[in-house]
């Protein structure tokens, strides 16, 4: 099981680095916007002027109110909440690194950090860009379609985009490239499940800033993840077998 162990170890290192970077970026760019949006969620039913008035300072109170089930456990605001966000970033960073490393091993293995960078770009395209076209990042207090149908569309879009990119990158045939493009376009022709109404108390400007922040933080996350995977992979090249010819 040495290959399994090596891939998991390499993924753990790359995921840890990317997860830490992502946590710093989220704390600076996305979490403040989420807290701001939660003030609209809490004010949703009342819609009073007081609620708008305390929007700037009352983020903490509103955040506490953001629970679907009053009895359910939720991390306390501040350090505890940030710590769980960091944990989720690192754990899923390792998960994404596993997928990136396994896919690149099947394609011949990352030979250097630059190949990793390109794989990171592909991961960003498949996991952020493509699903984000149909299902833009949402803030709390925004309406959304049925959860299950959105998750199905999200997973299908990620899988089809990844498959399409692989066909374009690794099959030197015009027909395969065309099929690849078709796979990438297909989920958007079908269309993502949309809510009945897009009406929301969240200002359009706030949402726009959130979409930009989420997209760019994810871009950096994937580039760090891919680059680190490429760097770590070269350290374990002897165990995993020398990389064969690949992209870049």
């Amino acid at each position: 099981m040495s290959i399994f162990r090596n891939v998991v170890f390499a993924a753990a290192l790359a995921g840890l680095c990317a997860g830490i970077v992502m946590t710093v970026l989220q704390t600076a760019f996305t979490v403040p916007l989420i807290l701001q949006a939660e003030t609209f969620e809490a004010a949703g039913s009342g819609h009073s002027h007081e609620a708008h008035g305390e929007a700037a300072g009352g983020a903490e109170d509103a955040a506490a109110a953001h629970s679907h089930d009053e009895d359910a456990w939720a991390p306390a605001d501040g350090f505890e909440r940030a710590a769980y966000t960091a944990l989720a970033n690192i754990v899923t960073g390792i998960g994404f690194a596993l997928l990136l490393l396994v896919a690149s091993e099947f394609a011949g293995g990352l030979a250097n950090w630059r190949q990793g960078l390109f794989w990171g770009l592909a991961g960003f395209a498949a996991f952020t860009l493509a699903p984000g076209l149909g299902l833009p990042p949402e803030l709390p207090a925004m309406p959304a379609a049925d959860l299950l149908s959105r998750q199905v569309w999200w997973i299908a879009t990620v899988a089809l985009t990844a498959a399409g990119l692989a066909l374009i990158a690794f099959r030197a045939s015009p027909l395969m490239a065309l099929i690849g493009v078709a796979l990438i376009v297909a989920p958007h022709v079908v269309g993502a499940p949309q809510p009945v109404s897009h009406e929301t108390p969240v200002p359009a400007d706030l949402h726009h800033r959130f979409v930009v922040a989420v997209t760019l933080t994810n871009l950096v996350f994937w580039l760090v993840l891919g680059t680190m995977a490429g760097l770590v992979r070269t350290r374990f090249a002897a165990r995993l077998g020398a990389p064969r010819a690949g992209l870049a």
Partner: protein
Amino acid sequence: MATHASTTHDVASSAQSRNLQLALAGLLGIFIIGFVGFSQLQAMHNAGHDYRHSMAFPCH
């Protein structure tokens, strides 16, 4: 001839074992992302709330 045949067999089985181990590692990755990103347990949901919004996972 006999050594040659056994060498090809070893190469084939090691390639098979390599693919199996890679597939296992990939499944582990899918399991981790699925559990953190899509779990509907309320406590998990609340713990990963800011993360999921920031990753644009279809959440609630």
